[in-house]
């Protein structure tokens, strides 16, 4: 049995759950969202990623109904949201501060939204118990929010926002307050819960690892615009701009002039240095400004001149960062450029061949990097 890949965004017959249509949001003179158009599909785990002030939180608050667009329209399930207040939307939000009601117990916090719907007591109790089980909080039902730990509070907030079975769940930096270990565990838990409940999740985060781990698609934002929307793998391997390449993970950028040659593009980047050969789908004109971006793990480092490598450069080791599982070498080229090369430490306690000030070769294939216009 072949498993179909989850990619509703590639299916032209699929109707999006959320549509942003030319949405602009201004606060006084400041433009938080700038003419943004974007579709998000049912069951997606959509991540809005960007530095603080890029407009990602504003986008989320517009979905929840706490802000209204200055221009443009937002549709949820085909319905124009302009006149619909937050309490009438089938959208729930998990707040960054969790916003648990301090005067209510865990149980009552989760039941809060259900009680507003006017459901009968038994139905509410059954749903709360279900949520408590889902988030493994049954033991803490009677506690007040200040009587539980940070990780438990985070789960209460999640349970509360899921209790009403919303069409769409918004998560505003949901894991920001947790320490790294707990954050990683919780990321998988979130994905698990998203799959179990089949809810569409939109998550706001500034942590690129978090976005890459949980999301089906990532939108990289800057200054009120979405720069690129793609799956985590595409974002990482095929960024559309220097901004995205630089924002996600570590990258070496070499800028130069393009010189098309056959199906390859050559980057001329410094006097007396061999040109860098790369492949690309985009057309570049001769002499056009071009940026060659390559991830450190795709750059090999060796003491001897490598044979049959498409690109090879000579340099000197400037710094070594040992991280346990990997080592990153900073190699200074004669031109002053510093190129990062990464190797996995697959063998335990191997004698380190390369050390500071060693003359080394760095090399990479002609498909290892991407060529970017801007």
């Amino acid at each position: 049995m072949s498993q179909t890949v989850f990619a509703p965004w590639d299916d032209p017959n699929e109707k999006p759950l959320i549509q942003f249509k030319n949405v602009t949001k201004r606060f006084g003179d400041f433009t938080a969202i700038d003419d943004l158009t974007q579709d998000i599909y049912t069951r997606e785990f959509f991540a809005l990623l960007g530095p603080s002030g890029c407009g990602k939180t504003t986008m989320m608050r517009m979905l929840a109904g706490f802000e209204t667009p200055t221009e443009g329209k937002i549709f949820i399930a085909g319905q124009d949201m302009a006149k619909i207040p937050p309490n009438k939307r089938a959208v729930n939000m998990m707040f960054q501060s969790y916003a648990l009601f301090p005067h209510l117990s865990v149980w009552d916090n989760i039941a809060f939204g259900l009680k507003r719907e006017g459901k009968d007591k038994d139905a509410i109790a059954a749903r709360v118990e279900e949520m408590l089980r889902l988030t493994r909080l049954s033991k803490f039902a009677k506690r007040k929010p200040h009587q539980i730990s940070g990780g438990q509070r985070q789960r209460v907030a999640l349970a509360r926002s899921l209790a009403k079975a919303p069409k769409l769940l918004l998560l505003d930096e949901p894991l920001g307050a947790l320490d790294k270990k707990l954050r990683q565990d919780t990321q998988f838990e979130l994905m698990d819960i998203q799959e179990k409940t089949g809810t569409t999740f939109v998550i706001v985060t500034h942590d690129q690892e978090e976005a890459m781990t949980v999301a089906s698609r990532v939108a990289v934002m800057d200054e009120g615009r979405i720069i690129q929307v793609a799956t985590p793998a595409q974002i990482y391997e095929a960024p559309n701009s220097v901004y995205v390449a630089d924002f996600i993970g570590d990258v070496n950028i070499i800028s130069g002039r393009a010189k098309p040659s056959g199906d390859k593009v050559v980057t001329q980047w410094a006097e007396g240095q061999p040109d860098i050969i790369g492949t690309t789908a985009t057309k570049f004109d001769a002499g056009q400004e071009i940026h060659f971006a390559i991830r450190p793990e795709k750059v090999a480092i060796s003491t001897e001149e490598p044979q049959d490598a498409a690109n090879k450069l000579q340099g000197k080791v400037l710094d070594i960062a040992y991280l346990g599982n990997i080592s990153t070498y900073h190699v200074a080229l004669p031109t002053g450029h510093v190129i990062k090369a990464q190797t996995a430490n697959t063998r335990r306690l191997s004698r380190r061949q390369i050390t500071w000030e060693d003359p080394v070769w760095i090399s990479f294939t002609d498909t290892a990097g991407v060529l970017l216009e801007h």
Partner: protein
Amino acid sequence: MRRFSWFNATALTLGFAFLYIPMIILVIYSFNASKLVTVWAGFSTQWYGELVRNEEFLNAAWVTIKVAVMSSTIATVLGTMAAYVLVRGGRFGGRTLFSGMIYAPLVMPEVITGLSLLLLFIGIGLDRGVLTIVLAHTTFSMCYVSVVVSSRLVTFDRSLEEAALDLGCSPFEAFRLVTLPIIAPAVISGWLLAFTLSLDDLVIASFTTGPSATTLPIKIFSAVRLGVSPEINALSTIMIAIVTIGVITASLITKQAAVRQARDERMAERTA
């Protein structure tokens, strides 16, 4: 770290003596057997007995409490509403002017407040009595309530209200079910403050009162002009006792809540 020093001890004694000697003298003389206020003639509680039988004082006490309860309740409602709008209402035009105007009566001389209210009541032909004192006390104590409540609202996490809206509350329900229970301590202390202010106000009450309504401070003030009687001392001692008990209870409740919260949080960290 804290070493005894003669300078500190002297400063402390002087300060407290300055604050409390007058009150201590008053309390001591309320148990004086003699009718003469300044001559000690042995311990007695007879003046307390006299006080309970004094119809006029009891009436005045009843009026005072009625006025205080009504005015502080109205002031709490109005003051809380004003604070909520000023803190939450966003940047509407003239917001700074409004918040300044809410606080202005705090520094207004009481005589002027009293006089202006008197002129207003005469102007609109309102008979002076309990109602006019209640209105006058509401006027000046609501700004105190508003100050207390708005200082709490400023530190109130706005996302709690948003969470309530998000979970299906109308804005009023969000206020009633989330905001109000959380700011309740501030609202209660605002009420207590307004109550106390109304209880001991003399100036504004004497401007706005009529022959039918005499509050305790007015009664005491007019009685003292005819000479201090041991009964007045007894009455004052009772008031001191009530205020002291109230203040101590309030601070104990606050302290206990803080201690419980700290203990719970430690427990939560351990079981995490």
